[in-house]
């Protein structure tokens, strides 16, 4: 059932119940006088007033976003509103009684006004209690769900950042390297730690210093060279001014990983990967070239990975608005070029 339907069902059922109870009570109190029937209409009207008044109350409280107030501020508002609504309903009842000629001058005596307004106020107050308690629980549930979704997203993000295939293959190579070249294996362990630490501590919503990012990428390439050996040739040429720039964290690493995973690792003879940066018009241009061929199939593959092309574009737009550019193309039949152009932050 949707929430609006639920609300209206409760409203109609509740106030009908209220009217019925009042009629029964009137029958008990006035039963022997034989004039009960003329009270039915005003009692039903009163219940309708209550329904409309509480609905108006809900409208106002939603408009003014009372649910977000502290308990204290909300309580004051609820009590005051209850009094206002309670007394208004009594005034309306007097009006109706007058029209129906049931009006007695004693209706306006202080005792009568207070005596009738108080129960009305109490009724509205109880109604508000139910209403706001329900709202609070609903909001709490929603925030829990929202939180769970956020955690799931973070987890997926982390998983894709960590790239288990790379980590376990690297560990396996390092294990073999321990006997063959202990010094190199020690370096490799440090490099892998750097990558893991960086993946775990990076805040994706901020930007990182280019220097830190390129360091991680160099570690990454060095580890992949241990795995692929002569099948992977790498070259990194950095324009010295590049170090003044900030880039989205892990972006460079992800693009380099893609170049190796979808390009070089698919080729029996291996290939090469190069990173070149240049400064042009105060903009940082990063070019990654890898052996391989971009096909619609492996573009899809990258997209599915989550941290792929569409994600890269989205992040660039989010951080740099439309001032950053990204493209990935087949530069030659067997070279894929990935290019990012970034403004200075």
């Amino acid at each position, binding site marked *: 059932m949707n929430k609006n339907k639920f609300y209206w069902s409760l409203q109609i059922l509740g106030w009908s119940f209220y009217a019925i109870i009042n009629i029964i009570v009137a029958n008990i109190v006035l039963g022997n006088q034989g004039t009960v029937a003329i009270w039915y209409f005003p009692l039903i009207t009163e219940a309708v007033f209550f329904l409309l008044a509480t609905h108006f109350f809900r409208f106002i409280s939603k408009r003014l976003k009372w649910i977000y107030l502290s308990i204290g501020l909300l309580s004051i508002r609820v009590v005051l509103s209850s009094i206002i609504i309670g007394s208004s309903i009594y005034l309306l009842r007097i009006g109706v009684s007058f029209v129906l000629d049931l009006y007695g001058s004693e209706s306006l005596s202080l005792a009568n006004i207070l005596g009738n307004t108080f129960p009305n106020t109490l009724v509205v107050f109880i109604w508000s209690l139910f209403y706001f308690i329900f709202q609070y629980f609903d909001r709490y549930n929603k925030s829990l769900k929202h939180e769970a979704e956020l955690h799931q997203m973070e987890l997926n993000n982390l998983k894709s950042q960590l790239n288990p295939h790379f980590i376990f293959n690297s560990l396996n190579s390092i294990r*073999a390297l321990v006997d063959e070249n202990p010094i190199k294996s020690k370096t490799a362990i440090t490099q892998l730690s750097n990558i893991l630490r960086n993946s775990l501590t990076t805040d994706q919503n901020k930007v990182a210093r280019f220097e830190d990012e390129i360091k991680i990428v160099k570690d990454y390439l060095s580890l992949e060279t241990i795995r692929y050996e002569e099948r992977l040739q790498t070259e990194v040429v950095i324009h010295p001014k590049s170090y003044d720039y900030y880039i989205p964290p892990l972006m460079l690493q992800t693009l380099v990983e893609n170049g190796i995973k979808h390009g070089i690792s698919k080729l*029996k003879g291996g290939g090469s990967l190069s990173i070149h940066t240049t400064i042009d018009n105060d903009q940082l241009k990063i070019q990654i070239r890898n052996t391989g061929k971009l096909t619609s199939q492996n573009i899809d593959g990258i997209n599915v990975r989550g941290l792929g092309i569409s994600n890269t574009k989205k992040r660039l737009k989010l951080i740099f608005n439309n001032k950053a550019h990204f493209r990935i193309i087949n530069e030659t039949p067997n070279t894929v070029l990935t290019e990012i152009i970034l403004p200075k932050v």
Partner: protein
Amino acid sequence: MKALIIDDERLARKELINLLEEHNSIEIIGEAVNVDEAYDMINRLSPDLLFLDIQMPGKTGFQLLEMLDSTPNVIFTTAYDEYAIKAFDVNALDYLLKPIQPERLADSLGKLSNIEDKKGEPDSLSKLGLQDQVFVKDGDKCWFVSLSNVRLFESDGNYIKVYFDNFKPMIHKSLNALDEKLDHRSFFRASRKHIVNLNWVEGIEPWFNGGLMVKLKGGDKVEVSRRQAAKFKEKMSL
């Protein structure tokens, strides 16, 4: 047991060789760096066991198995391929995750020597007999099927339907080529469309035009053409 190691990374192969040094029952007869190389070596050296990486440049480990007529024992070695491994019936497959734990390797080899003991001596004939297994991949699902469990091969266009248990996946082969490789003591070419496993035959009835209708355990019925009927009777009366 003669083993072949198939992995594109030298260090990964080296690591596995190191681990296998403790196991005297395993004799490493070669290393292959990709599927095509492995395919040649398997046909030349006929290993009893493959240590097979899944992700390799060119073709994957699964593609290698699909190329083979019958597969030796296979232990997959992979760093992280949850999807690929999920494709298998859990019991049908043994795999080791890299970096490989020595105990897990010992377990796998132990299981394997049990299976080998039960199989007994393989036939000296180079034909495919009941002890051989084939790799079958149909869409996302994969099986290693022992030929003793296959009751029927049925040709269907360019494919063959392989009947076993409750499955009948298709393999991309011709029935004539398969017939030439199968051991005819166990498998019989019933007609142009069918090869039956004689061990699964439950009953035989005469059929039209001097043919026969063969009932297999499990309920499948196969018609034996008139041309083959005489041969079939002769075979079954032995």
